[in-house]
């Protein structure tokens, strides 16, 4: 039982990272009808930016954190202008290929600069964690969970209680109609890309001290997050968050009770099971609302 509680805590922590990246997937998918296959690279680039600022340059952690997020906002804007915007009137296929291309470009640019050796990034806190009864709460996991909770609340407030959030929703549901009402569709899509890049970046920065900072971390996280969006019901915001958490918990328990080497396999086992038995995901019915 103690072990189960411990695993639950760790699972939620890692699941929160998947949830943040999955949220980025969903927001871009809803705004552009395209899956951004470079979403995981956003996490990877942000982690390396932290290495540049906090490790190589030795700047304070909080300053490095803010600069890395600002860098991600800039990357999101450039990504929109360079990858999505020129192809926005084409079908989804060229856009998807372009995001895959951008993902390869980002990964190899970082590889060219830092080489294949993984980098180490310290956590935010000096204290490694606290013992709470039978469960040891790792401080970095606590931070991940806290930030994710704050972001989920912010996301809800932003989309449900601000006019800008409503305009973003309107744009994702019917771009032509949104433009007829005077909503600047290109601005809305720009905001979506910047927001998604920052979300992905946050996930990368938060998870970096738990994993190594490596070129592959982006694709690993992205695949899990992508699985999370399918489990949750593709295009559903709540589904992405719950799918991410569920996936984190499942793989942590699977690794502990079944097999450590197959840890990454559990995510895809669950994904395949969902694709066969419930392809619309947990919240699948809601997709009908958007029809």
């Amino acid at each position: 039982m103690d072990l189960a509680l411990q695993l639950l805590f760790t699972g939620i922590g890692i699941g929160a990272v998947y949830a943040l990246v999955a949220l980025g997937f969903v927001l871009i998918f809803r705004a552009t009808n395209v899956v951004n296959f470079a979403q995981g690279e956003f996490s990877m680039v942000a982690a390396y930016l932290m290495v540049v600022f906090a490790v190589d340059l030795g700047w304070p952690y909080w300053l490095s954190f803010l600069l890395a997020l600002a860098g991600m906002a800039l990357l999101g804007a450039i990504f929109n202008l360079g990858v999505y915007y020129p192809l926005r009137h084409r079908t989804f296929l060229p856009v998807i290929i372009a995001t895959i291309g951008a993902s390869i470009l980002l990964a190899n640019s970082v590889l060219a600069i830092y080489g294949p050796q993984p980098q180490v990034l310290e956590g935010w806190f000096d204290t490694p964690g606290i013992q709470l009864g039978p469960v040891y709460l790792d401080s970095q996991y606590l931070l991940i969970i806290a930030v994710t909770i704050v972001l989920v609340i912010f996301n809800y407030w932003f989309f449900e209680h601000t006019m800008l959030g409503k305009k973003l929703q309107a744009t994702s549901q019917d771009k032509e109609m949104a433009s007829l009402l005077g909503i600047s569709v290109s601005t809305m899509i720009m905001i979506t890309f910047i927001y998604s890049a920052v979300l992905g970046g946050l996930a990368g920065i938060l998870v970096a001290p738990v994993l190594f900072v490596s070129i592959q971390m982006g694709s690993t996280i992205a695949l899990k997050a992508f699985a999370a969006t399918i489990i949750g019901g593709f295009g559903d915001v709540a589904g992405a968050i719950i799918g991410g958490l569920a996936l984190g918990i499942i793989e942590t328990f699977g690794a502990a009770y079944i097999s450590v080497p197959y840890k990454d396999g559990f995510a895809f086992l669950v994904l395949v099971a969902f694709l066969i038995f419930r392809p619309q995901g947990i919240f699948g019915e809601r997709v009908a609302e958007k029809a």
Partner: protein
Amino acid sequence: MALLQINDLIVLYGEIEALRGVSLSVDEGQVVTLLGANGAGKSTTLRAISGLAKPAAGEILFDGQSIAGFGPEAIVRLGISHVPEGRRIFPGLSVKENIMLGGSNRRAAKSELSREADAMFDLFPDIRPFSNALGWTLSGGQLQMVAVARGLMAKPRLLLLDEPSLGLAPVIVQAVFRIISEIRRNTTVLLVEQNARMGLSVADHGYVLETGRIVLGGKPDELWGNEAIAAAYLGGGHAKVTA
């Protein structure tokens, strides 16, 4: 000077000429109805005015200013609001949110838009009970009311209405047209209709469009009086002409 003046407008869809030199004018304070069969180019005319379709040639003057080639976001800011075919209510947003977004063409705080949307329910009391219902849950008539309310939130000088009666039960059609006769007190309306009787009943002027060209224009009773036109486009007009 007319509020809206269109001269020799040509719109192409690929190789096909959807509009082949359309000219029409709408005076301030008027309701002008554009009649015609399916595919005659009625919706394309409205789409060209609101910026959704790019004209290949011709002039579109709004209040004397050329707006041909402007994007839809710029045109709605100038004061032309387009309520398109099929209503296009955002399915995942509530009725009130849909209506509030109609004010996106001008700078207005959320609280102000909320107040204006509440006031809009006085004109459309039938949809007030559904204020918090999501768009996809509404019936066709309710959707049409929301679409017109949303269009009016732009505070337009010119309202473009595309087939507001399409697919609605006769009672609902009458309710929609009662609203149009309310709107005309302070807004100019360019109305596209297949239902010629209803369309002309509220109009000051009518045009008949046929395969991308205006073939006839005039006052409603002049249009009713034209036997060939009445039989071909206005449906059931024949008996009236022979009487």
